């Protein structure tokens, strides 16, 4: 028995800010102070609040230390662990004077189901997962439930795919269950491709067994004995923890032959993705597991009929699986009691961009964007104004301030021209140019289009060219009509979801921020001051002291003027690099 537990976050965010060294240092200091018998150090998964990492939580007090540095460790050990005095200066601002982190703004409105074990258990120790009811759902399913009963439970819970499409999970399982075959497969999509979403990574890093358990349950339901997890090679920590988890589960007889003495066999292998966004599409993912170029193919036949190696296959995303054991244990009604009419349960969002609290948040469906940004996210830095939030990544759209109070669920997001996607939620303030953001996503899809079908391969390229014309101030109003026409053609004709949704970022910004497009085209101005070709730099003669600092630093020799006289910028020579603006000590350089 330990009298204290020190939990240090070992998720990607905190590891990047140096948590591994902190763990070593804590262990070293504990040894030095002869506390090894009394204090236990645990490396956990992600706590969610990545922006104040590395995070350390000391129990039983539940003290929430943030931005801990290596040199702070001796003080924490000698003061807190040895003398019982909390090191106030390191306590997370919001948590000061409170009993627990659950009361802080960031956590107050959250409800953690998929993330319930992240940041709580040591993901590299199966015993800790079992201690939190782990593998009980699998036992219950194998011993007490028929496959039909499990499917009914998942259907009744209203769980929908968390990877983007929102297809009812129970329905997917039911379809694969009904197709007789000598061999079936269960796949897990961990090829999290949306740039800006990292919840699947956190689940794999913080609670890998939940995914393994759910896959085994799915295997029992559809009659499969083999599972594959397709995970991005860019996620080394997640891969490592998955490997450890699979090995431990095999050792405990929770994967492999004759699980729980019921005669049920199920094993899981890992396949690494190799950096192709299109492999998040289900048919492309399976083609990739087979060892080919990850190109999608037309549906039908659906994977539930002919999937991996032409056998019935189900594919669910990591977060979807993470919900399954809890639904089995707590019942469909419990899960269905949360959320909105057609979107049940919770959703994890990766909150990022121009917001104070960057990190992972899990909230009941139906929470408004305002609550997420203003309350959980702690608002926008530097007193700037909220302009838009982007959801759904390259397939989604931008939500404007007008829809700040709409309850977020699958159907509402589609209705306002965006989509749930895998859960990236990027906040933008007034300094973000919406045409530039649309262009950013188009550049992404041009890069990632697999090239198999023309509407996507050529369509995305032409669309990007049109956007480039706009940001360079060379477009006409007719180009906007062309964009809309091309977008609707792509939507109808592209082979897979990547191409069908590629125009969404353009269409949604065009719909919600048409004025900004018009300003680029008609007035040749970028209101946010982002699009270089449309900017002009000038010097305010009132403020300029003639110090020559800007002129000395100008790479293009575009600035002239006598010492102690106001300077001027020659617009024909100016390359718009902005150096003069950053160098000027008198705020005399103006960007318009």
């Amino acid at each position: 028995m330990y009298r204290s537990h020190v939990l240090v976050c070992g998720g990607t965010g905190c590891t990047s800010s140096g948590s591994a060294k902190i763990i070593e240092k804590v262990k070293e200091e504990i040894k030095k102070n002869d506390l090894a018998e009394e204090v236990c150090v645990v490396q956990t998964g992600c706590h969610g609040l990545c922006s104040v990492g590395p995070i350390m939580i000391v129990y039983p007090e539940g003290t929430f230390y943030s931005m801990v540095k290596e040199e702070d460790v001796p003080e924490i050990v000698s003061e807190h662990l040895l003398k019982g005095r909390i090191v106030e200066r390191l306590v997370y601002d919001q948590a000061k004077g409170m009993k627990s982190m659950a009361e802080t703004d960031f956590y107050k409105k959250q409800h953690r189901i998929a993330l319930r074990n992240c940041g709580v258990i040591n993901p590299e120790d199966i015993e800790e997962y079992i201690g939190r009811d782990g593998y009980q759902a699998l036992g219950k399913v194998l011993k007490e439930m028929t496959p039909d009963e499990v499917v009914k439970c998942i259907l009744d819970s209203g769980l929908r795919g968390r990877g983007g499409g929102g297809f009812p999970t129970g329905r997917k399982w039911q379809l694969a269950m009904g197709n007789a075959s000598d061999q079936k497969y269960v796949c897990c999509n961990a090829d999290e491709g949306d740039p800006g979403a990292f919840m699947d990574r956190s689940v794999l890093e913080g609670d890998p067994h939940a995914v393994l358990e759910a896959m085994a349950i799915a295997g029992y339901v559809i009659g499969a004995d083999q599972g594959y997890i397709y995970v991005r090679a860019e996620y080394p920590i997640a891969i490592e923890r998955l490997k450890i988890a699979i090995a431990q589960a095999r050792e405990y007889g929770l994967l492999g032959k004759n699980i729980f003495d019921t005669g049920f066999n199920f094993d899981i292998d890992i396949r690494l993705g190799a950096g192709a966004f299109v492999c998040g599409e289900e048919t492309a993912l399976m083609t990739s597991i087979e060892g080919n170029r990850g190109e999608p193919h037309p549906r039908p036949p659906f994977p539930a009929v002919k999937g991996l190696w032409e056998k019935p296959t189900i594919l669910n995303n990591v977060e979807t699986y993470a919900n399954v054991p809890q639904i089995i244990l707590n019942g469909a009604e419990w899960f269905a009691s949360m959320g909105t009419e057609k979107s049940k349960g919770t959703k994890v969002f990766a909150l990022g961009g121009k917001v104070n609290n960057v990190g992972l948040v899990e909230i009941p469906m139906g929470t408004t964007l305002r609550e997420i940004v203003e309350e959980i996210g702690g608002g926008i830095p530097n007193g700037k104004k909220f302009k838009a939030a982007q959801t759904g990544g390259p397939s989604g759209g931008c939500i404007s301030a007008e829809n700040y109070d709409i309850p977020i669920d699958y159907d509402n997001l589609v209705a306002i021209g965006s989509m749930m996607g895998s859960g990236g939620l990027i906040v933008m303030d007034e300094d973000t140019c919406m045409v530039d953001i649309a262009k950013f996503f188009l550049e992404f899809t041009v890069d990632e289009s697999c090239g198999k079908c023309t509407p996507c391969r050529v369509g995305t390229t032409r669309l990007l060219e049109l956007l480039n014309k706009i940001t360079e101030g060379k477009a006409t109003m007719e180009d906007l009509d062309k964009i809309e026409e091309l977008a609707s053609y792509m939507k109808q004709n592209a082979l897979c979801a990547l191409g069908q949704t590629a125009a969404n970022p353009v269409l949604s910004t065009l719909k919600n921020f048409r004025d900004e497009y018009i300003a680029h085209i008609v007035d040749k101005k970028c209101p946010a001051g982002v699009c270089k070709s449309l900017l002009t730099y000038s010097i305010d003669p009132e403020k300029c002291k003639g110090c020559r600092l800007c002129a000395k630093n100008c790479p293009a020799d575009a600035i002239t003027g006598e010492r102690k006289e106001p300077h001027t910028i020659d617009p024909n020579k100016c390359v718009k690099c902005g150096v003069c603006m950053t160098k000027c000590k008198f705020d005399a350089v103006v960007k318009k």
Partner: protein
Amino acid sequence: MSSEKKFVPFQGTKEQEEQLRKVIADHKGQRGALMPVLQQAQEIYGYLPAEVQQIISDEMKIPVSKICGVVTFYSFYSLYPKGKYRISVCLGTACYVKGSNKIYDKLQEVLGINSGECTPDGKFSLEACRCIGACGLAPVMMINDDVHGRLTPDCVEDILAKYE
């Protein structure tokens, strides 16, 4: 912009080839083994030049045309050697909104190379990547396995100096 990437001769050793043949033997009979073999081959050689693809083709009895198709499809596989220090700048949405493209421009300027290229001395190679999941530290870049976060264009040179 200078680029040596196309002219680096293949310098594979006997040991590397033995390692590769062992990897292929370990995957014998496994369905869909090509991707795992390519991943490990890249770990052994650092990249996947035609010579390596040929060995895999001979051993696995897969046409080299198909192997080349797979290698060029996925951004994780490289046909060219990488630098001693591989720099990848995150151009995911969260980093982009916080100005990672300016970091990327600055690196190209300082190193004098474009994306996907390697400095002539073989020290640094540069590429863009999409979201490494460290959005809390945006904008970020990775140099080999080290993550550098909360970057500004001004701090780029100081960071590079640590890798001399």
